[in-house]
């Protein structure tokens, strides 16, 4: 066991890990932060996406020890301290961008990374950016619209009456 320390959502944390302990396992098991999900073992589904030093990474494909000293942001740190959803989270609710919720933490974290680099993405750019985030419920339609809305762009009304 080796001690690893990092800052997660602004809080300094540390814990004893093995070499093989993945960052996702450190978050879920050592820290009890179960918002980060693991949906595959081939680094494709993206349910585990977090930010490490500002960049989106798949926390299931990074060793905890490789994040020693890093700043990590997870889904748990996205809303305001009083619980107010951030603009992306709110757009996901407003545009029904989630159903079962399992891929959602990764989707929100990927969307945040996208909008940081590209504040007004086109629909095609959003779809392309989500290459590494698989959703089985929504068909992505409302995820794309939520991200459009979160970026302040026009989105047609959700529910046709």
């Amino acid at each position, binding site marked *: 066991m080796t001690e690893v320390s990092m800052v997660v959502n602004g809080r300094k944390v540390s814990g004893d890990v093995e070499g*093989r302990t993945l960052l996702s396992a450190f978050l*879920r*098991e050592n820290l009890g*932060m*179960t*918002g*980060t*999900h*693991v*949906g*595959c*073992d*081939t680094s*494709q*589904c993206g*349910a585990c996406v977090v930010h490490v030093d500002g960049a989106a990474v798949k926390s299931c494909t990074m060793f905890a020890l490789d994040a020693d000293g890093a700043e990590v942001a*997870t*889904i*748990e740190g*996205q*809303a305001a301290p009083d*619980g107010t*959803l951030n603009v992306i*989270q709110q757009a*996901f*609710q*407003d545009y*029904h961008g*989630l*159903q*079962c*919720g*399992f*891929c*959602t*933490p990764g989707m*929100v974290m990927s969307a945040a990374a996208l909008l940081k680099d590209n504040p007004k993405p086109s*629909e095609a750019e*959003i*779809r*392309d950016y*989500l*290459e590494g*985030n*698989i*959703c*089985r*419920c*929504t*068909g*992505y*339609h*409302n*995820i*794309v619209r939520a991200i459009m809305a979160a970026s302040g762009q026009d989105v047609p009304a*959700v*529910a*046709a*009456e």
Partner: protein
Amino acid sequence: MPKDHGIGASSKRREDVRFLTGDGNYTDDINIAGQTYVHFLRSDVAHGIITNIDSSAAEAMDGVLRVFTSKDFEAVGGIPCGWQVTDKFGEPMQEPKHPVLAEGKVRYVGDPIAAVVAETPELARDAAEAIVVDIDELPAVVDMKAALADGATKVHDDLTSNLCYDWGFVEENKAAVDEAIANAAHVTTLELVNNRLVANPMEPRVAIGDYSRGTDDHTLYTTSQNPHVIRLLMGAFVLGIPEHKLRVVAPDVGGGFGTKIFHYAEEAFVTFAAKAVNRPVKWTSSRSEAFISDAHGRDHVTKIELALDKDNNFTALRCETYANMGAYLSTFAPSVPTWLHGTLLAGNYTTPLVYTNVKAVFTNTVPVDAYRGAGRPEATFQLERVVDKAARELGVDPTELRRQNFIKPEQFPYDTPVAVTYDTGNYHATLDKALEMSDYANFDKRVAESKSRGKLRGLGVAHFIEACGIAPSNLVGQLGARAGLYESATVRVNATGSISVLTGSHSHGQGHETTFPQVIAEMIGIDESQIDIVHGDTSKTPMGMGTYGSRSIAVGGSAMVRAAEKVINKAKKIAAHLMEASEADIELADGQFSVAGTDKSVAWGDVTLAAYVPHNYPLEDIEPGLEETAFYDPSNFTYPSGAYFCEVEVDPDTGAVEVLGFTAADDFGNVINPMIVEGQVHGGVAQGIGQALLENCSYDDNGQLLSGSFMDYAMPRASDLPTFDVDHSCQTPCTHNPLGVKGCGEAGAIGSPPALVNGVIDALHRGGYPVEHINMPLSPSRVWEAIQSVK
């Protein structure tokens, strides 16, 4: 003006807040003090005799609590099958034992041989690797037709063959169908495969067993769509635990799509092992393990023939299908290719004669069971493909051939020749809607534009009908179901007027926590926020059958309405007492009880308070309290229908298919929450496009799974899919449930595969490549090969 609350409003989902903040409670998020972990040692060969298992090295490892093999399960039952199909000779299907851990033989890659319980997951896996298993390999039975050949190796030695059943429906119609086809003016024939799929909800399955010696209580936390069904099957048939000593909890569940209906060996194992080691036992499936342990879906091989008269009227349909059961019978597997398939083969049409033969076959593959749509996608795919082919052969517009043969609006209720009665529908309306939405009239211009870029554009049309809202218990009982298919609800009104609805339906993405309160809010006239839903825990809700078959709102919602009606009736009695009026004169609107024709009224909360603080209360006539339960058993299935158009572009040089647009005009009857209904259609269509274009669960001749991870099993990504154009304005409400709803969960997955395939075939024909059929998925290589075959 759209409504902003109650039935018909696109209320935002309250469950989203916890899912968006990492605050969901999925089964893998549950950790119990003292918990241990199990790793299953699974067969890496498809078929063989286990000659020896030496687990001594594993047992000697530090941190290993115990190694289990089938010997430990001699006193318990096998995993039961929940449906018995009777074959065309009147005999029951062949039903092999499905042991919790393999007994003597392994029958598919993934069959669990042994299980190690250890202090950590990695230790359990290390120890599982230290178990030495000797297997005398047998030839693998993979191809269904070969499995039925004389002398084929048997998957189950104690059965007479690999044939589970040979089912005919409607057997009495067979001679008439044969005659009609023999004498038809035109017969269109098509042989096709409905490809095997893996459901792949994003949350892999998890099961945690917990046991208290002090109370002899068992608890199973599991990723299930129907905790009561698991309690019944596992308690009564496998482990012999009475219901009051067995609690099954399915908390937040990350998608199901059918594959989390079934009772799995891992659930029985952790429940059993928790008592055996007297510690909680947790199993978390990896995605790779899911591919070889979750029940697969579809996998039909079919020949279908459609007979038409000289005026292009459909006169008969004959279908011969081989349906893969895999190595064992999963919970509802036998029902899928039979009652969920054969009864839908009239489709939207007036075809007077229909006959289906289904041979269900055991093979050395993962068990196959219901996947979103379950039988109905298979029926719709073959029917809509053969109708499309007939239109092409006859040189008529595919929409017109369909329209000509549609059941007309005035013909409802309509008795089909395949034993079901459609209560309502208007297929012409959804077709007209889809024609308008898809800009069908200008399609030729778009073809020309694609051609100018070297691409082939096509438009595929498909219609569907489904029987859902499953199902009338007495009917399914006659058909072989070993369970009732009612649903339950308790409406528990609290003293201050807030309400907890305890439902047997289970939400794993469908949004019940939002939509069910919308219904109650509408009925009583109080705010939706005053109502909460409780589900997913057998210790909290009345016995319910869970969520699948697009049944939650049609059956579970109906149970809730019935319970709420009882509550309202009782509340009216209380209100009448409080206002000293006749009960018959009491009206409820906007959360106020009033006396008709007067200005007297009393608020909902005052009445509920009176029920629990019964000082001024008719105690001689009614009991205190305000809580009612209802069990609702539907009198018929519901029959959603729709018209789906898919516009595609084919790159003839690479075979790549791009989905340019997708139009869905559905009739779901009344709609509770349009936003959620549309989301269900989006997701269903995406899965259907996935089946048609991308997904392929494939075995080699040795029974090795070739597509055992997301590296080879192509899941639809955002860039694979278009923006969907969906509509549900064509509404013919269901006539036999109180909400007039039909259900919307499976529609998208049912109607979309034939729409897409018809679109690609249309594109190829328009481009000068007269390809008649390509089996799904229409991967680039398959489309390219089809083009080469007609060059």
